[in-house]
């Protein structure tokens, strides 16, 4: 009897997650950071501008309106992206039904052809619109794709090391992420290559509270190998606008919702 009690206590001790600061486990930190970065409010709308600087210092710009709706908190989401600039992609719409546990469904609407195209799900680590941001930076990397360990804790940040579960599917060996203790927003991420060198850095340059939700309004990705970088600025950010599920259907690809998109 005594022996089994000891075993139970021992099990309990082992199974209870090792607490980080403020009594949070690593998984709890990761999950809260994921919610803070990608699931603010039940839905959100914003105008985004990207400034892409290539290795030779040439600058290109992108401008789009992005609408997001959470189907499940921390799970499935819908995204609708309407392009304003540059001219050759103006009026094009890109729509994603995101599934963290499987392939996303993606559509593209080409207005000049009135064509609703279904796009094959692809590598989520491809460039978003020719910028240094990747699809995963914009819509989030599945938290189940990596194993996470707390490597450092300061007064302000938790620093987590993230190892990919499937190293063959990504170009990094691991990445460090700095999570703000007050907002749970990741404010910096550094990606390491196989030579143990940081080759890519994503940073939040400005965080503002919008409708009571801490929001990254300006961020930057640097490609440290080539020196190229992209800066993204969000304006006209609004949360909980009552964006309905039907916005994310073929109807609104052909007829962009005027209520949310000003052209």
């Amino acid at each position, binding site marked *: 009897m005594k022996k089994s009690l000891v075993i139970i206590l021992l099990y309990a001790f082992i199974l209870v997650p090792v607490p980080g600061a403020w009594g949070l486990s690593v998984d709890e930190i990761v999950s809260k950071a994921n919610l803070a970065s990608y699931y603010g409010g039940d839905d959100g709308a914003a105008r985004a501008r990207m400034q892409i600087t290539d290795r030779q210092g040439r600058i290109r710009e992108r401008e789009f309106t992005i609408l997001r709706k959470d189907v499940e908190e921390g799970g499935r989401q819908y995204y609708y992206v309407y392009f304003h600039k540059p001219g050759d992609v103006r009026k094009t719409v890109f729509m994603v039904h995101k599934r963290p546990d499987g392939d996303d469904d993606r559509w593209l609407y080409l207005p000049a052809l009135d064509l609703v195209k279904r796009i*094959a799900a692809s590598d989520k680590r491809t460039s978003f619109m020719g910028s240094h941001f990747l699809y995963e930076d914009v819509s989030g990397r599945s938290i189940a794709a990596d194993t996470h360990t707390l490597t450092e804790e300061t007064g302000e940040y938790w620093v987590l090391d993230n190892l990919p579960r499937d190293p063959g599917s990504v170009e990094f060996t691991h990445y460090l992420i700095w999570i703000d203790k007050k907002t749970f927003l990741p404010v910096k991420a550094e990606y390491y290559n196989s030579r143990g060198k940081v080759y890519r850095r994503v940073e939040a340059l400005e965080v503002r509270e919008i409708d009571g939700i801490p929001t990254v309004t300006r961020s930057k990705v640097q490609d440290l190998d080539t020196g190229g970088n992209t800066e993204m600025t969000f304006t006209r950010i609004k949360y909980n606008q009552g964006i309905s599920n039907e916005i994310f259907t073929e109807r609104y690809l052909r007829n962009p919702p005027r209520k949310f998109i*000003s052209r």
Partner: protein
Amino acid sequence: MKRILILAAASLLGVAAVVHAAELPFNGFLEYSLGSRIVDDDTASGGILLHETRFQVDIIHDADSGSLQFRADFLLDTVTAESLTDVREAYILLTPSSNLDLKVGRQILTWGTGDFVFLNDLFPKDWQSFFIGRDDEYLKKPASAVRATWFGDSLNLDFVWIPVFEPDSFISGERISYWDFRQNRKAGPADGIIEPVRPDKTVANSQAAARLFGNVGNWEAAIYGFDGNYGQPKGYDSVLGKFDYPRLQTWGASLRGSLLGGIGNAETAWYRSLDDSGSNDPNIVNPEYRVLVGFSRSVGRDQTLGVQTYLEHALEFPDIGRSEQDRLWITLRYTGLFMQQNLTLSWFSFYSPNEKDAYVRPKVSYKVSDEVRTTFGANLFFGETENSFFGQFKDNSNVYARVRYSF
């Protein structure tokens, strides 16, 4: 030729500079295109198939109740020595009730699942533009139409009414040579342009198309119907010596969805050639079945491969415009983006194992800046015989270059 190029480049730069400085209250582009045959054609005097400057104006106006869209090309066509206005879109889009969208006016219409292969999309097309190297968007020709789309809980209904028949821009001999079955030889610009008899402008001759669509599990499913005329002159009146557009009714269905890590699609259509009822008239197109199966998936970072198999089966043979009773195509598409997505390499090919012909569309496009895109490409036709579908265009194989300034 060199002087023309320099002149064109200079004027393009000049207009671009003005446009850039003026901050115009509309969007659009300015484009210069030049394309030429790479083989001799006995039926044509010159080799230039494409030589034009295009200025597109694009204006949208949104209000609470709806949107107005106007988009038109002002075109200086050096090949035909004419200037013309091509109104691509001029429509009003309204939402009269929460589950109804209404689009009235000149518009581009597209549906169906094929990639450059059309079964249930009977809306006007411009095949000549496609073959001579204009941008892909010009394959679709606008129509003046009313489109009403009703959205239900699980089923939606699209209905299109085109009051006055709008034919395809087919291969009429204006620039491209073709096989003339009447004379049993090739014909081209030297033989004049085919001008078919159009259906009378009556309500009975208006064109109607419908699509019932919705999701079946994870698949996008649709049923289609069309009642109107063939967009191409597939009828020949040997007494009048004139081509016409026979009456057509079609029924079809399609499916599209995620499959094996890619996108799979299937579509079928039944073409009822209404003027050909009864005995087989070889001068009027025969009824036919069409079937398409396609699959596309990513094959690397920013690279996609698509394959389609397409079969067209005429119920009777001989038939107008056919060298075989069946037309079997295998199409292949490759698209790759490189250099921060500024360089696009693409390939599209049609290959027919039974007609023994092929059509290849390689293309390279580079974005010099956000405003300027240059495109180089080719339209290459191959065939064992001169009367097969693609083989007849063998002497029209061409290369082209385009430069576009968007604003």
